[in-house]
């Protein structure tokens, strides 16, 4: 009987783009919060 192949070790996903996106979203969020205070202040 053929043996089931052993599970391959999980490959680490490259999340560099996601990390960059987190930083961009944070900068945009802070900018939006500053603008909120300026526009409604």
């Amino acid at each position, binding site marked *: 009987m053929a043996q089931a192949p052993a599970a391959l070790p*999980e490959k*680490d*996903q490259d*999340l560099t783009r*996601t*990390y960059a996106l*987190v*930083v961009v*979203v*944070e900068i945009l*969020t*802070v900018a939006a*919060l*500053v603008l*909120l*205070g300026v*526009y*409604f*202040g």
Partner: protein
Amino acid sequence: MRWLDWTVVGVYLTWIIWSGLRAGRRTNELDGYFRANRSLPWWAVGLSVMATQLSAITLVGTTGKAYADGMRFVQIYLGLPIAMIILSRTLVPFFYKSGVFTAYEYLERRFDVKTRSLASIVFLAQRGLSCGVVIAAPSIILSIVLGWNIIFTILAIGLPTIAYTMVGGVQAVTWTDVKQMVVIVFAMGSAVTVLIMGLPHGVSAGDALHIAGSVGRLQAIDFKWDLHQDYTFWSGLFGGLFLSLSYFGTDQSQVQRYLTASSVNSSRHSLLMSAFVKIPLQAMILITGVLTFSFFLFNKNPMLFNPVHEKEVLASTRAAEYQGLEKEYDLKFAERQVAAQALAEAGKLDASAPAAVAARDAFKKANGDVGAVRTRAATLVKDVTHDSLYKDVNYVFPTFILTYMPMGLMGLMIAAILSAAMSASSGELNALATATVMDFYRRHWNKDAEDAKYLWFSKVATLFWGLFACAVAYYAANLGSLIDVVNQFGSLFYGSMLGVFILALATKSTNGTGAFVGFLAGLATVFTFAFHPETKSISYLWHNVIGAVVCVMVGMTVSLFTGGNPTRKGVEAGPIS
């Protein structure tokens, strides 16, 4: 509360208990009970991470803060996204691949058993007490505003949480967290709708924000460098970074959440979900508080939102003075209402037009007058009752819910407050049981027992910590306003805890003695800073930075003088033998 509200709360509690018990019905071994056999999807873990952090204190206290102080509180979260990136690259894959049940388990492998035990004891003490506070805060508020017995409210939150956490373990915790987050988001959406619909004819949501903005309620970011202010851009970015690194990276109540994910990449995604969502979510909760401020410009609210001492003051010799303040408050409230209406109408003009400037100045003065009466009333309450920490910000949002939310939605909001308290405390109970069993019972007293025995003991530990938290909640309720002091308790420990993990992961020369002494030195320094008369005014957010830096420096120095780390055990990950 009317019949439909009671029905909604009853249906919520039944649904949560039933689904919690059902989610964990197949949990019959230790790995399933504490790590869900590493099978949960990233989005469920991500929601659970956020639900554990979002307690009823956050929900009710944050809206109250925004009502009184504006949106500055959001800055505390500025370090969180950066912390999530750092953790995603460092500790998350490390813990996951090491196969640990608790974060502290790794410290024994890297250093020694005494460092692991100290870290775990600090976690148990700090998290055990804070779990009590998490239950106490909404219990006190609900008991005061609804007139319920405090023991009833504590048990209404505590007992269902203990039941499903004890029976279902981490699977029950995670899946109920998901449902509770949905309840919270839906309820907050309904509150915002009621707030906007409650504005008078001719005043739009934009006008309401303009009015609130004219008295600084929308100034979210403050770039001033001031160590004594809790909420600035810099304290949020640096202090908040260390706080988030420590909370999400070394606090078992969070580490356990992402250890349940189906893969290391899922664990990372679950944390990165918070990195994207947390600041906007918190900003929305704060804007709800700002809208509550605008709502109460046009809809009458009591002079003081916290009615706990009102009877005592009215029975005292200064009752006439208090009643005089109430009459003055009514007058000033009416003047401010007129000024707010005029400002809303002037908002349609050019902002620099003389009429618009005059309307803004008139509203600022009227709002200042109302604030001054409220301050005098609060001072009178403090003088009469000797409750020097009396304040009423935490009662603003519950007052709105109970006075202005329509039937059914009021029940939904109460269910949301219960959800926030239950989701935060269930994750904590589960983590407290894990640390008790894995770091002490299995490590020190019963190393080779069968899984069934550990599972049974885990359920007993969950029950013990649940009852302990309820007892702490009852005691904290009697402390009254001291609850806010206890709330900042975590920052006394977080920095030093983070320091130990930095020593473990980022240095190879540190030995167990160095880490242990560094940990104690960090704790001692932070306690000194927090309570010394000359330094206690420094914002608690900086305690996280101080604790981490002192722990790392002392740890490395002591290691240097105690022979360093001859085996140079470093950062390699792998199953713990």
